[in-house]
């Protein structure tokens, strides 16, 4: 079970890096992505490569199990490990879907207006799902209510009315992985002033998500 997995980097240009991850490292990356996604108030960057590699990993393990001797103790232990990995992966994907459904107009708007180089927060399959969810809901509301309303009231901008935005001011717990200096903390009330803090490696903090959102994306901090 210690074969290394080949994992090609995200961009598809000619000089893309090849990062070789051991299965253990891959699962650790999955768990980190899972925890970040669970605790972040908004939908985070899509980690399709991790998902793909973990699915492959699970297939590998299934293969090995089929070939193994029946009654071998290793079988139970590996099966247990597979269940654990499958739970984390499912939980991660579920968490993302739930956020997509919860904030769909804002997420789709962001997708439309995001530039070429910007990393998408949706995988291609998630984008399809999000668009279908929006179309389904819009059609339903139109047919059941809106089209029976006075003409000047038939268009409801779902973006502004029915669906709330993620609360980026909510507080999150984090652990610092890479030392950060001079993080600007904006005041919450008019009486406070903004101030600057340093984040020491290994330290843990309770802080407003908006302040450290880019650090989650870069991997400098881990939400816990």
């Amino acid at each position: 079970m210690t074969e290394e997995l080949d994992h090609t980097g995200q961009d598809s240009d000619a000089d893309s890096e090849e990062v070789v991850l051991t299965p253990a490292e891959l699962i650790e990356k999955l768990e980190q992505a899972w925890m970040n996604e669970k605790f972040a108030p908004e939908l985070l960057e899509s980690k399709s490569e991790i998902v793909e590699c973990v699915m492959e990993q699970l297939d590998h393990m299934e293969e090995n199990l089929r070939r193994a001797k029946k009654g071998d103790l290793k079988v139970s232990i590996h099966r247990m490990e597979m269940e654990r990995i499958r739970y984390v992966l499912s939980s991660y994907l579920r968490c993302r879907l739930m956020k997509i459904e919860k904030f769909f107009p804002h997420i789709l708007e962001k997708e439309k207006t995001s530039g070429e180089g910007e990393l998408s927060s949706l995988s291609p399959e998630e984008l399809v799902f999000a668009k279908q969810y929006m179309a389904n809901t819009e059609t339903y509301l139109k047919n059941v209510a809106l089209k029976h309303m006075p003409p000047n009231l038939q268009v409801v901008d779902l973006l502004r009315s029915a669906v709330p935005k993620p609360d980026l001011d909510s507080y999150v717990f984090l652990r610092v992985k890479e030392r950060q200096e001079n993080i600007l903390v904006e005041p919450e009330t008019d009486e406070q002033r903004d101030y600057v803090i340093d984040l020491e490696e290994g330290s843990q903090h309770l802080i407003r998500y908006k302040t450290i959102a880019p650090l989650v994306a870069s991997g400098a901090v881990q939400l816990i």
Partner: protein
Amino acid sequence: MFCEKAMELVRELHRAPEGQLPAFNEDGLRQVLEEMKALYEQNQSDVNEVKSGGRSDLIPTIKFRHCSLLRNRRCAVAYLYDRLLRIRALRWEYGSVLPNALRFHMSAEEVEWFNHYKKSLATYMRSLGGDEGLDITQDMKPPKSLYIEHFLPRWKCEQLVRQGVLEHVLS
């Protein structure tokens, strides 16, 4: 007072605890839409009076009716959308076949929305790689058994127990 029926719809859902889906209040919704139609028509005629007859004293009433129209719409959309959220939760709770009791509480259009949602979810799950994709509506709880109850000869397990891989469960 205007918007009373609309408020009633919202209250109805507010009273229903999470996970519960009361019967679709078709009558209630119809009444809200009818009130909206009446308000709109009254406003239309008053606007004409203002334009042609110079009755600017009607303007406050027109504004008031417009606010009521907006409120009615907001309540109606909130009612319908909140129900969709509850119905969506049912897919995750009960699977793709809903118990009859719940289905009877849904309007035909809601059933259609649900079917579209199911399909969309299934397509997404299938796309997750592998032969059949990944059914993420399973594995909702972390695997409970940290220890597997095995009846194995002691000599096979001894080493692994000492390594901390297995625990001897006495039951």
